[in-house]
C-alpha cells in the first residue's frame, strides 16, 4: 500500500513538474503503424499508415510519404499504404518522408496450413459490423423476420445454432455457399427488409462464403480468448479541418495480434468536434476542443483522444492564460491552465469579493450569506479572507445539512420506499457520517457491509430500498462507480465492455444479503428490518441456469473457500485506489457540485467510452483524494481555493466559445431546494413542510419538520412541495444525477411571478418586508438592504439612481406595495435565480 501510494505521489510530483515547463516542442518523428501486422487474406484490403508524432502525441498523417516493401513477392505496398499480399512469408515495409524513414514488419500467413476462419473471431465481427445483430435488427429480443441473433454476438453458441440449424438449415448451403440465405439476404439478392448490408465484391462477403464452404465451423473450444484491443494512435492533436485514420488491433491470449479495423465500430463522443468520415476509422476534425473517438470490437472498447486548439484570438495570440492569476501549487489550476494553453483559451479574471462570497456560501452550505456577513467580508482588508471563509464554511453545520442532502440523492432517502421511522434513521445515519466527515471510502464501506436493525443501523436501509441482488448490484455500481450495468442484465452491454456473465457474477456478490421483519410495503408496517448475511445462497445466470462464481466487475472471483461476507470482498475491491471507477466517480460528483458540469459528463456516467474533458484534471482530483485518504473536505478545499473556481463568469473574446474547459465560471440555475431556502432567507418567511406524498399521490402527515425547517434539512424527497417539484428536485426514484433538473421552464417563471410562494411571503405579516417598513429607513437605505438580502451585494450607483427615481413616483399609501415590488423584481431576476 505504502509503496503504491508513494509511487502515486512520485508520479504526481513528476507530472506537476512536467506540465508547466513544456519547453520547446520536441522534434517530430515518423512512425509506421501498426508496428506488427499479420495478414490472412490474399489480395488488397489491409493497410499501414505513416504518422507524425511529437512528444508521444500524433500530430497528423505524413502527407506524400513513399512506402517500400522489402520483398514484393510476399507483399506489395501501394502509395497510400494499401497492402496487397502475394504469398506466405515475412517482409518489412519502410516509409520515407522528408529526410526520415521508419518501418514495420508484416507477416503473410499460410492459409493452407492455417486453421481457416473462426466463427467467434471473424464471422461474428462481420455480422456485428454489418449490424445484422443490432438491437433494431436480428439482435432484437424477438429477432426479426424469424431470424434471431444475440445482441452484438454475446452468445456465439446460440448464434451458430440459429445460422446453421434453424429454419431447416436453409440459411447456409455448404455445397454452394453463394446460394446461402446468409449471403443472398444481406446482399439484397433475395428480398431483405433490412436492405443491403454487404457487397458481393467485399472481403467480408468472401469471408462468409469461405467460412460456409469450409463447413460452417462453430465456436472453437480451445480458441485463445481476446485479451484486449488497441487503437492507434491513442492520442493526437490536430487543427480543425485535419484528418486522421485510426487502426484497431485485437490482442489474443496466445500472443497473436490481428488487425480488426474493418470490423470495429467507431463513434465520436462529440460530433461537433469530431466526425467520422467513413466507417473504417477515418476521422475529421470539425470543431475546437478536446474529444475522443471510441472503437468497439467484440464487447471491448478503446478510446482515441483528440485535441483541437481554438483559433487564437488576435488579442491574446501567443500570450494566453499567463496574464491571469493562477494559484501556485494548486493541482486544479495546474491542469486547467495546461489545457487552456493547449487549446489556446484565455482565462477570465477573478470574480469580485461579493460574487465570491455568495458563490462560496451557496456552494458549500446551500445558503446565501447574510447581509451582515456580506458587509463584514467587503470591509475585511486581509489578504487571506477568501481562504478564511472557506475554512469557516467547511466547519459549519449548514455544510452538514447541505451535503447530507446531496448525498441523500445518491442514497435514495425516500419515503416512497421506506417507512417514516426508517427514513429518519437512514437520513440521520448519513448526516452523522457527513458531520464526522467520514472518509468517502469508509462511508461506502459502512453502507456496503451494513448489517443489523433498520432502526439501529441506519445504513442497512440501503438494502431495504434495494431488495434484490440485481437491483443492489445495479445501484451500487451506479451510485459509487458511475457505471450503468443495467443493459447487461439481458445481454452484453451493446457498446460497453460489460458482459451478461459479468453482470450475474457481480449480482452474486449480494446473493446472501437477507433480512427479517418488515417486508417492503411502504404503506404499512413498522419498518423494522434486521439485515444479515446468510451462509448460503447464489444467484443463477438465467441464460445458462448455472451459478457463476461471485466476482467484482473487473475483479478476481471469490473462491469457494471464502467464508467472509461477500460484501466485504466487494468493499475491498471497490475502495482500493486501483479501482479506476470509484475515485473518479466521487471526484466527478464533487467537481460537478461546484461547477454545474462534471469533468466527465453526464455526471454519473463514468463508462470507459465517455472521456473526461480534461483527463489530467480528473487524475489530479483523484490523486488528491487518495493522498488525503478520501477526505472530501480536503478535495473541496483544494477545488474552491483554486483560481479556476474563483473566476468571474465574465466572457472574454478568447474564451467565448468555451463551455467545458473552465476558462471562466459558468452561471447555472440554483437547485430547487437552495432556491427555496434562499427565497425564505431573503423574505424572512421560511417554507413550511407538513405532508409526505407517496408515488401514487397518497398524502400523509409528517411531524418531522418543525416550523423553520429549511428545504435542505428535509430527510426525504417525498415531502410535498409544489415549489420543489416545479423546480426539479431529485425525486430519488433511481440513482441518477439526471433525476435532478435545473432546467428553467415557463411554469417556473409563472410560479415565481404569480404564484403563492413568493407573493405569499412578500405579503406576510411577519417577515423582511414588514420589518423594513417598520424600520422607517429612507428609500436609499431600503434599496441597499433589499439588495443585500436578495443579491448579497450593494446596489451600483446607477441602480440606486434608477430605483430612487422609481420610488419618487410612489404615493405614501403604496410604500409597502412598492417595497414588495422591489423584492419581487430582485427575486425574479436571473442574478438571484442563478449561481454566477
Amino acid at each position: 500500500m505504502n509503496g503504491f501510494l508513494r509511487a502515486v505521489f512520485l508520479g504526481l510530483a513528476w507530472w506537476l513538474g512536467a506540465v508547466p515547463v513544456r519547453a520547446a516542442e520536441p522534434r517530430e518523428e515518423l512512425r509506421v503503424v501498426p508496428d506488427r501486422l499479420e495478414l490472412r487474406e490474399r489480395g488488397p484490403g489491409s493497410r499501414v499508415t505513416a504518422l507524425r508524432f511529437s512528444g508521444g502525441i500524433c500530430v497528423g498523417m505524413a502527407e506524400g510519404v513513399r512506402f517500400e516493401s522489402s520483398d514484393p513477392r510476399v507483399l506489395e505496398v501501394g502509395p497510400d499504404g494499401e497492402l496487397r499480399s502475394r504469398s506466405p512469408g515475412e517482409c518489412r515495409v519502410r516509409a520515407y518522408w522528408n529526410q526520415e524513414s521508419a518501418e514495420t514488419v508484416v507477416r503473410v500467413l499460410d492459409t493452407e496450413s492455417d486453421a481457416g476462419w473462426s466463427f467467434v473471431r471473424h464471422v461474428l465481427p462481420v455480422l456485428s459490423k454489418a449490424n445484422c445483430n443490432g438491437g433494431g435488427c436480428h439482435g432484437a429480443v424477438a429477432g426479426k423476420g424469424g431470424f434471431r441473433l444475440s445482441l452484438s454476438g454475446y452468445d456465439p453458441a446460440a448464434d451458430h445454432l440459429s445460422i446453421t440449424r434453424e429454419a431447416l438449415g436453409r440459411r447456409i448451403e455448404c455445397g454452394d455457399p453463394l446460394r446461402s440465405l446468409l449471403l443472398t439476404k444481406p446482399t439484397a439478392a433475395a428480398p431483405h427488409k433490412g436492405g443491403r448490408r454487404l457487397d458481393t465484391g467485399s472481403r467480408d462477403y468472401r469471408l462468409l462464403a469461405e467460412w460456409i464452404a469450409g463447413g460452417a465451423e462453430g465456436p472453437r473450444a480451445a480458441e485463445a480468448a481476446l485479451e484486449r484491443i488497441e487503437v492507434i494512435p491513442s492520442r493526437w492533436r490536430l487543427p480543425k479541418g485535419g484528418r486522421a485514420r485510426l487502426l484497431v488491433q485485437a490482442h489474443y491470449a496466445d500472443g497473436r495480434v490481428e488487425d480488426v479495423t474493418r470490423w470495429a465500430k467507431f463513434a465520436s463522443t462529440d460530433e461537433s468536434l469530431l466526425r467520422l468520415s467513413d466507417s473504417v476509422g477515418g476521422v475529421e476534425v470539425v470543431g475546437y476542443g478536446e474529444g475522443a473517438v471510441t472503437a468497439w470490437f467484440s464487447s471491448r472498447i478503446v478510446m482515441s483522444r483528440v485535441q483541437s486548439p481554438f483559433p487564437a484570438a488576435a488579442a491574446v495570440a501567443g500570450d494566453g492564460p499567463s496574464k491571469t492569476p493562477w494559484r501556485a501549487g494548486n493541482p486544479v489550476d495546474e491542469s486547467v491552465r495546461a489545457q487552456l494553453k493547449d487549446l489556446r483559451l484565455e482565462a477570465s479574471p477573478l470574480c469580485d469579493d461579493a460574487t465570491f462570497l455568495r458563490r462560496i456560501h451557496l456552494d458549500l452550505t446551500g445558503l446565501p450569506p447574510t447581509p451582515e456577513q456580506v458587509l463584514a467580508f467587503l470591509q475585511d482588508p486581509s489578504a487571506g479572507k477568501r481562504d478564511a471563509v472557506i475554512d469557516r464554511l467547511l466547519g459549519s453545520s449548514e455544510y452538514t445539512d447541505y451535503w447530507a442532502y446531496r448525498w441523500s440523492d445518491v442514497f435514495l432517502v425516500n419515503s416512497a420506499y421506506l417507512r417514516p421511522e426508517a427514513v429518519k434513521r437512514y437520513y440521520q445515519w448519513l448526516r452523522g457520517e457527513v458531520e464526522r466527515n467520514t472518509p468517502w471510502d469508509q462511508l461506502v464501506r459502512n453502507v456496503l457491509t451494513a448489517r443489523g436493525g433498520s432502526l439501529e443501523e441506519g445504513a442497512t436501509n440501503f438494502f431495504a430500498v434495494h431488495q434484490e441482488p440485481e437491483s443492489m448490484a445495479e445501484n451500487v455500481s451506479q451510485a459509487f462507480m458511475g457505471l450503468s450495468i443495467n443493459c447487461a442484465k439481458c445481454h452484453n452491454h451493446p457498446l460497453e465492455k460489460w458482459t451478461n456473465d459479468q453482470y450475474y457474477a457481480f449480482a452474486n456478490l449480494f446473493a446472501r444479503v437477507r433480512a427479517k421483519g418488515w417486508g417492503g410495503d411502504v404503506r404499512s408496517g413498522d419498518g423494522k428490518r434486521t439485515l444479515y448475511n446468510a451462509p448460503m445462497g447464489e444467484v443463477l445466470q438465467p441464460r445458462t441456469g448455472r451459478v457463476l462464481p461471485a466476482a467484482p466487475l473487473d475483479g478476481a472471483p471469490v473462491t469457494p473457500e471464502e467464508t467472509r461476507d461477500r460484501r466485504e470482498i466487494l468493499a475491498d475491491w471497490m475502495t482500493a485506489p486501483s479501482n479506476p471507477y470509484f475515485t473518479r466517480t466521487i471526484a466527478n460528483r464533487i467537481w460537478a457540485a461546484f461547477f454545474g458540469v462534471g469533468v466527465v459528463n453526464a455526471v454519473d456516467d463514468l463508462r470507459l467510452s465517455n472521456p473526461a474533458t480534461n483527463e489530467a484534471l480528473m487524475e489530479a482530483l483523484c490523486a488528491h483524494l487518495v493522498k488525503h485518504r478520501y477526505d472530501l473536505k480536503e478535495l473541496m478545499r483544494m477545488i474552491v481555493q483554486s483560481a479556476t473556481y474563483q473566476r468571474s463568469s465574465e466572457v472574454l473574446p478568447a474564451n467565448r466559445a468555451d463551455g467545458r474547459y473552465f476558462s471562466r465560471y459558468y452561471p447555472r440555475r440554483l437547485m430547487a431546494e437552495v432556491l427555496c431556502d434562499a427565497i425564505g432567507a431573503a423574505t424572512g418567511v421560511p417554507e413550511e413542510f407538513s405532508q409526505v406524498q407517496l408515488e401514487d399521490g397518497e398524502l400523509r402527515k409528517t411531524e418531522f419538520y418543525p416550523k423553520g425547517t429549511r428545504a435542505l434539512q428535509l430527510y426525504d424527497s417525498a415531502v410535498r412541495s409544489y415549489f420543489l417539484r416545479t423546480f426539479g428536485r431529485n425525486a430519488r426514484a433511481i440513482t441518477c444525477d439526471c433525476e435532478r433538473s435545473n432546467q428553467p421552464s415557463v411554469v417556473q417563471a409563472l410560479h415565481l411571478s404569480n404564484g403563492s410562494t413568493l407573493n405569499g411571503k412578500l405579503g406576510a405579516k411577519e417577515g423582511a418586508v414588514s420589518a423594513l417598513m417598520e424600520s422607517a429607513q429612507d428609500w436609499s437605505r431600503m434599496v441597499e438592504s433589499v439588495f443585500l438580502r436578495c443579491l448579497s451585494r450593494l446596489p451600483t450607483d446607477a441602480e440606486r439612481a434608477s430605483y430612487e427615481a422609481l420610488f419618487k413616483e410612489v404615493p405614501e399609501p403604496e410604500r409597502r406595495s412598492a417595497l414588495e415590488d422591489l423584492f419581487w423584481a430582485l427575486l425574479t431576476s436571473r442574478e438571484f435565480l442563478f449561481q454566477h
Partner: protein
Amino acid sequence: MLDFLSEHSGGLCGPSHLKRREFLQVGVLSALGLSLPQMMEAKSKGAVRPGYEDRACILIFNLGGPSQLDLWDMKPDAPAEVRGPFRPIATKSPEIQISEVLPMHAKIADQFSLVRSCHHDGAAVHDAGWQIMQTGRRFTGGVQTPHMGSVAGYLLGTRGDLPPFVVLPELMGRGGGNLPNGQAGGFLGKAHDPFALMADPSKPNFKVPDLLPPDQVGAVRMERRQRMREVVEKALSQFEESEDARLMDEHFHSAFRLMSSEQARRAFDLSQEPDSVRDRYGRNRFGQCCLLARRLIENGVRFVTLNTFLTVFGETTWDIHGSKPFTSIDGMKNVVCPMYDQAYSALIEDLAQRGMLANTMVAALSEFGRTPKVNPAGGRDHWPGCFTVSFAGGGVKGGRVIGKSDPIGGFPAERPVVPGDLVATVFQSLGLEHESHLVGPGGRPYPLVDFGCQPIRELFI
C-alpha cells in the same frame, strides 16, 4: 425504421450527455413557441406526416375502470350474475347496442366507434393500468416512458401562446398501488410534462392558478414590477453567454406573454360561452372540463387529457366494487352515468357542429374493465382481461364495433388489442409515425410504441 434523431447518436447506448442536452433543448424550444422549425425537422425526418398539421386529440381518461358489461359490451343472453341489472337499447348505428344508462350516447352512436377487445397483462391495479394505457408501456428498469400527449407535444410543438399538452382538471391522484401513473413527460424530461390546470372550471370563481398575478397586484403594479426587474436584469451581461440563463430569460418573457396573452385568457374563460352551451355540457367539473377542452383545442393546444375523476377513493367513480370507500352500481347509474353521458355527447356534438371533429380525435380510455361476474356486494372488481374503449373524430369513422369479447366479456374473442395499439391509433390520428424513434435514457432508442404494436387501421377506413 425512421430514426429521426439518430444523427446525434453515437450508437445504441452511446454518449448520452450530448443527446440528453440536445433533446432538452428541443423541449425548451417547444415551450417557447419556437416549435415550427422543430416540427419541420421532425417532419423532414419522417416522424410527422404532412397534411396533419391541424390534428389534435382529447383523451378522456375514465379513472376507475368502467364496466364494459354494464355500458358498452352488454351480454343480455348471459346468466344474471354476468349480465347485471341493465338492459341494452338500440342506437343510431345499426351495429351498436348500448346500455340503457347511456341514452344520449345512443343518439350519437354514428359518431363514435367501440373497440371491445382491449386487454393488457399489467397488474389489476389502477396505477399500473394508468401508466400502461397512457404511455403504451409498463415501466420497467426504472425507465418511465412518456405520456402520449408529451410525445405529441415533443414532436409537434406549440401552436400559439398555449402549451401543447394540457391536463384537466388536475393530475391523477392516488390509485392505491404506489406506482407512477404515466401522466408525465417521463424520459423526455420535465420540459414535456403536461401543463396541469389544477383547478375546477365549474366553480364560480374559477381561474387558472399562477396564470395571472394575485388580485392585489393589478396591471399598474405588474408594470412597475417589470420595470424594476429590468433595471437589475441589466447588471450581468455575461448571462447572455449562458444557455440556461438565456432560456430563463426567454421563459420569463413567455410567462409574461402568457400572462398578457389575449388568446390564453380567452381560451380559459368559460364565461364567454352562452349559458345554453354550458348547460348542455353539464354544470359539473367533468362537463365544464369537456367544454374547456374544446376551447383549448380551438386555441391551439394539441393534446388535452381529461381525467374524469381525480382518484378512486372517496369519490363516486367508475370503480364499482359495490362497497365503501368505492362506488356502488347504483352510484354509477345515478351519478356517474348521467354526468358522463351528457358531457361526452355534448362534446361530440359540439365538435361536429363546429367542424372540429374531423381534426380532433376524442379517445375514451380506462385502466381496465370489470369482472364478468357480479360480486357479493353487487359490484364488479378490476379486470384487465377484456374491456371496451371508444374513439371518435380525427379520421375515425363512427358507428362501428371493432373486435369482440367472449360470451361473458372475460377475454377477447376476436381481434385482441393491446395498449400499445391504442396509443399507436392516437398517434396515427395525429399524423405521428409510430415506428419513428425517441432517444431514451442512456441514448437507447425507443420507438413511439413497442415493436409489433399497430394502429387499429379499420377505424380509419
